């Protein structure tokens, strides 16, 4: 369980990173390494070159950009966890970050790395989709697209081999904004068996419920979210949640349905309790 041979480079800035990616066939970005590390050791990933972006200053920002927070792709889960009280309007990020795996993973794992890896059971793809966040990508042509479009399936994104995620723009919630995030893990630190995120903001009109830990991308429960936005907890009945699941997600077996329904219901309960 030792990695196969690979080359390693630590670029000094994003431009150098992009140049390294463009030059080498089979190059792979190394950020926190919390998923890539084990994959290397299991020889499931066999890149010719690792481009280590974990120390790039430009990816470390946590910047108040007015209506959004701009979070650098290299920001670790731990830094977001520790930003509690300082991310006004995006407190949900701190809460989600604090429940990712365990602290030693959070110390190294990054928000950008989690999005780029796109594990269906991971927390950031789900939470950021529900928040309506978008991804800023650097490459031959810089681009920005919503997280929900960026992730295309299990472990699949639109990120090209010559691109790097630079930052994530997370819209702030107003004072009236409410959110809920529930995941069920078999033990502390495990990936979720079932997860759901819900975000409601009457001022901005945001109303989203997403189901995570599925076979593919986080799944929006759009009509349920609209009903809940209109009618509050009256629209969040057991029947309504089941109905929404049946409409939106087809490939769940009975056990998965029970867990998913519980996740959605409990995320909504947090919304109403807050």
């Amino acid at each position, binding site marked *: 369980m030792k990695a196969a041979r690979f080359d390693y480079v630590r670029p000094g800035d994003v431009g150098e990173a992009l140049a390294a990616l463009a030059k080498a066939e089979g190059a792979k970005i190394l950020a926190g390494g919390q998923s890539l590390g084990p994959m290397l050791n299991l020889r499931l990933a066999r890149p010719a070159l690792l481009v280590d972006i974990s120390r790039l200053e430009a990816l470390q920002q946590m910047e108040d950009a007015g209506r959004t927070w701009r979070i650098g792709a290299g920001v670790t889960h731990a830094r977001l966890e520790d930003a509690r009280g300082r991310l006004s309007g995006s407190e949900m990020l701190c809460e989600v970050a604090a429940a990712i795996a365990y602290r030693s993973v959070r110390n190294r794992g990054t928000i950008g790395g989690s999005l780029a890896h796109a594990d269906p059971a991971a927390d950031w793809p789900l939470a950021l989709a529900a928040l309506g966040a978008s991804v800023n990508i650097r490459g031959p042509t810089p681009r920005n697209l919503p997280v929900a479009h960026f992730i295309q399936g299990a472990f699949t994104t639109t990120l090209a081999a010559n691109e790097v995620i630079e930052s994530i723009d997370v819209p702030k919630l107003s004072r009236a904004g409410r959110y809920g995030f529930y995941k069920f893990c078999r033990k502390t*630190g495990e990936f979720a*068996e079932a997860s759901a995120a819900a975000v409601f903001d009457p001022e901005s009109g945001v109303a989203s419920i997403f189901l995570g830990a599925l076979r593919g991308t986080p799944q929006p429960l759009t009509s349920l979210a609209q009903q809940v936005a209109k009618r509050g907890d009256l629209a969040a009945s057991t029947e309504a949640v*089941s109905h929404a699941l049946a409409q939106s997600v087809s490939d769940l077996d*009975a*056990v998965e349905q029970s867990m998913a329904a519980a996740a959605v219901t409990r995320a909504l309960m947090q919304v109403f309790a807050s």
Partner: protein
Amino acid sequence: MTQGIGARIQRKEDARHLHGRGNFVSDMILPGQSEVAFFRSPIAHGRIRRIVKPTGTENQVFIRADLGDVAAIVAPTTVPGYKLSEWHPLAQEKVRFVGEAIAMCVAPTRAEAEDLSEQIDVEFDELPVLVDAQAARMESTVRVHEQWKDNVFLTLNYESGFEAKAKGAPVVIRREIALARQAMVPMEGKAVLAHWDDRSDQLVVYASTQVPHIIRVGLAQFLGIDQGRVRVISPDVGGGFGYKCILQPEELCVAWLALKFQRPFRYVEDRREHLVVGANSRQHQYRLTAHADERGRLLALDAEITIDGGAYSAWPFTVALEPGQATGNLPGPYDFRGYRCRTQCVATNKPGFLPYRGVARTGVCFAMELVIDAIARAVGREPWEVRHDNLVSAADMPYDNVARKHYDSGDYRKALSLAREKIGLEAWRERQRRGERDGRLIGVGFASYCEQTAHGTSVFSGWGLPIIPGYDQATVRVTPDGGLEVRAGVHSHGQGMETTLAQIAHEVMGIDIANIRVVLGDTGSTPYSTGTYASRSIVMAGGAVANACKVLIPRFLAIGAHLMQAAVATMKYENGQIIGPRKSISLRDVAEAWYLRPQELPPDVDLGGLEATVGFRPKRDTGAFSYASHAAVVAVDTKVGAVEILDYVIVEDCGTLVNPMVVEGQTLGGAAQGIGTALYEESPFDPNGQPLASTFADYLLPGPTEIPAIRIHHVETPSPYTEFGIKGMGEGGAIAPPAVIFNAVNDALRALGVELTDTPLTPRRLLEAIDRAKPSTEPRMETA
């Protein structure tokens, strides 16, 4: 005496471990050392047609043919009908499980050795795979071992008073119960480093093993060299649990490399190898029929046990140990007189079964305790009460049970009653009636067991194993400054024996334990012992240390009497002082006389001097039986299938406590493993025999947050047969948790008509069982 038996003192070995200064095989680097990686079978069953080594690697890649005269590992017993398996250290002709070693690769680093391994090409003729023990038993043509007439390693039949006792019983309970296959997952896996030492003319093998002297015997035997030319050193070992009580084929391979090339070679098992090759324990299936009276008093038990033995029988304990222990221990701590049991151990295309902490008793306790609860439900009584009435009573001790086990001492009922009291059953029952605000269901469970420990010659010779434990010996030696060296052939890999053996020596000799050095794990410097397994070491090595210390005291007195010019009869020894009628001198004075100023010694001084090697065996070697009752409260979330342990109490009796803190540490560690068995750990295989849990992403272990704050209460009933009344206790913690947790969950789900009987209790198993129990009119599995 604050350092002697019963003292709650911190462990002598903790400092080096807490500072990361332990010395494990993985820490060792010898000049010119090469690393070894194994090429392992990717298929579960097949004939090897051809092995192609990468070109130019003749001195780096080795297969069975290269090993020449190295013998296959064959582990005989005298148990009638037991079939032998031939386990070649590198596969010969056939592979029988995924992960079986086929070739070994040698390189300066492990990564490069793995690079070599990737280039090996093996062609197989694949054979049908036997994954399921029941199917393997019925299979008419496919054989794990060609020369066998069927796939059954061993069938044991036991019967005592069954028909007469079962006849006409008003309550008959039938259950099918199963435990999943598991890996043992010590923090350190297998590890071996071997080199040739010209000065001693010896093959020196550092092995992460519980049984260095046994490994020495085994290496010499299978390599075909004199035992005098083998020294085995077991350095710091990161947990054994039974995984390291056998001769590993990798140890044989690496020893062969060192012997052939006279250079150092090292192999360290990685996690993936462990989870694949080490998926080797716990998998039992039970079909039980219990016959009871209207009050739930057990009259007779009929059992069919199937053990998935995997492909090979390990040396020296053999795959027969598990069915033997299952058959003998199923009746547990209960008083009943009708028993019939048929146990089959079946060969399958999986790693060969090894004895894991608790050895069969985790399984039999699980099966028996679920049945006791089922009886209680059938007769409408509290499970603890029915359990209580069935336990052997203190008045009947010692008690010879229906399976001819001799329970030496204890008050089983008292332990259970204390567990009930400590857990606060009535308050939980009240809370259960009120219901939880979050909708979870509360359940309370109990489980009791007794555990044969330190069983010796008479028990093991009954199984006719290649290695039978006899007398354990210890050497004690007073140093010239009045300190003490203690040497024993057992080993300590988490048990704290450097401390507890010192406490025993202190108890006899009064020397400060800071000045007592305990040396273990080296065949070059310790007396022979079969080693550490079967919860035996503190009883056996502890007894030997006490005996050896006692032998020295008259010698102290004789020298002291001469030095003080008084009669020996007037001398006494206390706390390191030789006390005469007028004055006293210290042990140091005696030691200085013996070693440094022999001119002062009496002319008739005992020539044994200030060291002695003395053996020990209990007065009766059928085992000192520890026992315990566990009680647990769980909250079951029936929407996601989660089980939270709200409270957990252990009332245990391991006889005289040498160090309560060590006992508690051992008990907690065992309980954590038992909780793993109950809720998390499982090594599933697909129909092709491919292991499905080969990383910790798929093989879940409980972590610190999954282990509740377990409350331990001690009862102390000294064994009448052992020195100081000590009983072994290393395994006990791991025995009861699956039983107590399932009983608690089944208690919680009783109203839903759900009873779970298969480990581990995953969310999926739980939700599926709830779904199956729903009346057909109710919509199934819908909502939160």
